[in-house]
């Protein structure tokens, strides 16, 4: 796959061991500084207003951050999965909503990168790499969340076009994207793994509309849209892969996108830990710094250990997913499961370290706690991750009923 041929991770062939390269360290430090200086000061306001941060999108585009997932030939940086995840982590440490701009640019583009023709890639990718256009990933439907294969959105071939009817829900950046990667049923009679096809829908286009935006607990600046398709015509030239490839493409996408959610979770946890450590050094009670109390020290130590464990697992998963092979889905799910739970626990403890102040929006930890929750939900709930892991251990159930075959769904 073209997008992954860039930075070589210093992995030891065969063993899956890794160390960060000089490039990755420089990129990490650069993005940490950029995020601290330009994104941290905006994070609370983005959360409060619930508005998509167009300024941050432009900042990320200007610094080639949105170019990371794309091949150099089309104006991208050609970063490997680990490098992309390092970037997501650093931005999420400052503001999860902002990190989602990069995450979703990668997520929405993955089918195109995995199976797009040369013509499609040359036509669509340069504007995505430059950040001129945004892309969203639309698989989930109101009645097809974890059970993604239950999708009802229909695509019917009509001459050189497909006519798409139906709708999607919980589509991150669905209202601000210029391209929406839509999965729709092309053959309702086929078995689950062959029912869906994938389309790059360029919007605005007649029949496409944003019905509503969700009011959410966290990631409030990231618009989560419900989309409606009413006799929406999409050129057959924009079908990604062959008819019936949709399911395979969606699952291949998740193998590569779930480590990104894990990285986001690690970033949130680190942000909360950093805030808690700074507060513990500063806040005085009973005549001493609260960091001098062993009960606080133990919490901080556990938070650090959980965060670092999640980080190392996530980086390792990136290397394994990049290498491919039958264990890729397992590694991706393990990383997301562990990192998502770590983010929830660490941010909850961070609020505890802050005491009553942590419950107010005078400090960032309550926002981080709200933002952390989504990492346990989207791109496959924690329950779905366990299902994927168990399947890797036990094999597919022998007597699976038709219609649930290969179910590894998501809300994206």
């Amino acid at each position: 796959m073209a997008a992954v041929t860039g930075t070589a991770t210093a992995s030891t062939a065969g063993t899956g061991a890794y160390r960060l390269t000089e490039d990755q360290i420089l990129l990490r430090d650069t993005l940490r500084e950029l995020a601290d200086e330009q994104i941290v000061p905006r994070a609370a306001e983005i959360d409060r207003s619930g508005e998509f941060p167009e300024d941050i999108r432009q900042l990320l585009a200007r610094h080639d951050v949105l170019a990371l997932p794309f091949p150099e030939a089309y104006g991208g940086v050609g970063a490997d999965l680990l490098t992309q995840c390092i970037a997501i982590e650093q931005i999420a440490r400052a503001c999860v909503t902002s990190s989602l701009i990069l995450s979703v640019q990668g997520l929405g583009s993955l089918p195109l990168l995995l199976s797009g023709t040369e013509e499609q890639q040359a036509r669509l990718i340069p504007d995505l790499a430059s950040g001129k256009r945004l892309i969203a990933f639309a698989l989930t439907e109101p009645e097809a969340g974890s059970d993604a294969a239950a999708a009802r959105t229909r695509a019917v071939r009509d001459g050189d076009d497909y006519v798409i009817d139906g709708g999607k829900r919980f589509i991150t950046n669905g209202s601000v994207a210029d391209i929406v990667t839509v999965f729709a049923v092309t053959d309702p009679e086929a078995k689950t793994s062959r029912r869906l096809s994938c389309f790059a829908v360029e919007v605005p286009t007649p029949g496409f509309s944003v019905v509503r935006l969700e009011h959410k607990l966290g990631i409030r600046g990231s618009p989560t849209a419900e989309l409606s398709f009413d006799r929406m015509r999409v050129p057959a030239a924009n079908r990604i892969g062959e008819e019936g490839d949709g399911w395979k493409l969606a699952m291949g996408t998740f193998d590569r996108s779930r480590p990104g959610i894990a990285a986001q979770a690690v970033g949130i946890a680190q942000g909360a830990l950093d805030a808690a450590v700074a507060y513990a050094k500063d806040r005085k009670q009973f005549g001493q710094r609260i960091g001098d109390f062993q009960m606080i020290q133990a919490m901080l130590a556990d938070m650090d250990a959980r965060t670092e464990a999640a980080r190392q697992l996530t980086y390792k998963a990136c290397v394994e997913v990049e290498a491919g092979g039958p264990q890729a889905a397992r590694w991706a799910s393990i990383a997301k499961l562990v990192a998502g739970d770590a983010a929830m626990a660490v941010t909850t403890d961070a609020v505890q370290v802050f005491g009553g102040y942590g419950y107010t929006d005078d400090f960032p930890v309550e926002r981080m706690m709200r933002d952390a929750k989504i990492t346990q939900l989207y791109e496959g709930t924690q329950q779905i991750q366990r299902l994927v892991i168990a399947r890797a251990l036990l094999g597919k159930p022998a007597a699976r009923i038709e219609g649930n075959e290969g179910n590894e769904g998501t809300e994206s």
Partner: protein
Amino acid sequence: MKIVVLAKPVPDPAAAAERLGSDNRLDRSAAPNVINGNDEYTLEAALQLVEAHGGEVTLVAMAPASGAETLRKGLAMGATRGLLVTDPALGGSDAWSTARVLAAALKEVEFDLVLAGFDTSDGVGGVVSAAVATLLKLPYLSSAAKIEPNPDAGTVRVRRISPTGFDVLETTMPALIVGTQLLGTPRYPSLKGIMAARSKEVAQRAVADLGLSTEGGGSAGDGAVGGSASRTTVTGKRTPPARAAAKVVRGAPADAAKEIVALLAERRLI
């Protein structure tokens, strides 16, 4: 235009871990190394000049071998290549030895301008660049707030900060210019720049490669460089006494100004 930027790897001041080792030399292991902050300002100016006039930027440094990694950030910001003089014998070099090494290194590079930062955050001497200019017999223009070369005429004009405003200086190129932070805020490296920096060269030279020697003991006139040839040594160190607490004046600007004036008058400072 061909521009050299003198870019010194120094302990990251943000780590607040700068210290002297037991040998009274800078302990470089105490903090991660970064490009000296003031040098990033002159690098930014150099990058803007080649963006406007075409050309290339070469980073020149004297540092331990790990300096090559530190210079990579400058390459990621847009510099074309690096030249690192590194030699264990250079450990403990004083300003004079450093200037001789940098002057010798500059003989290996073609340039129209050499830019240097105002001083470095570790040594804070601010004299090396003047010594380099002297050794190379280059015009020396200091405290630059603005640099305006005229490549066709082979001249450069500099706005130098003065106690009363600016002096405007003009000289022929090649020349050595010491910049200030008024040149403009350094850019972040772009991610494409970071990836591109991989393929850029940081050439390394040892003392012998530059036709210099570390033998000679530092007596005046010989050509020796390095720690053992240095003419100055650090003989001791102590922590400065803590300052008395500052008085912070708060309030509306007009009221605060009155209060400050009163305070200064009380101490007969105005």
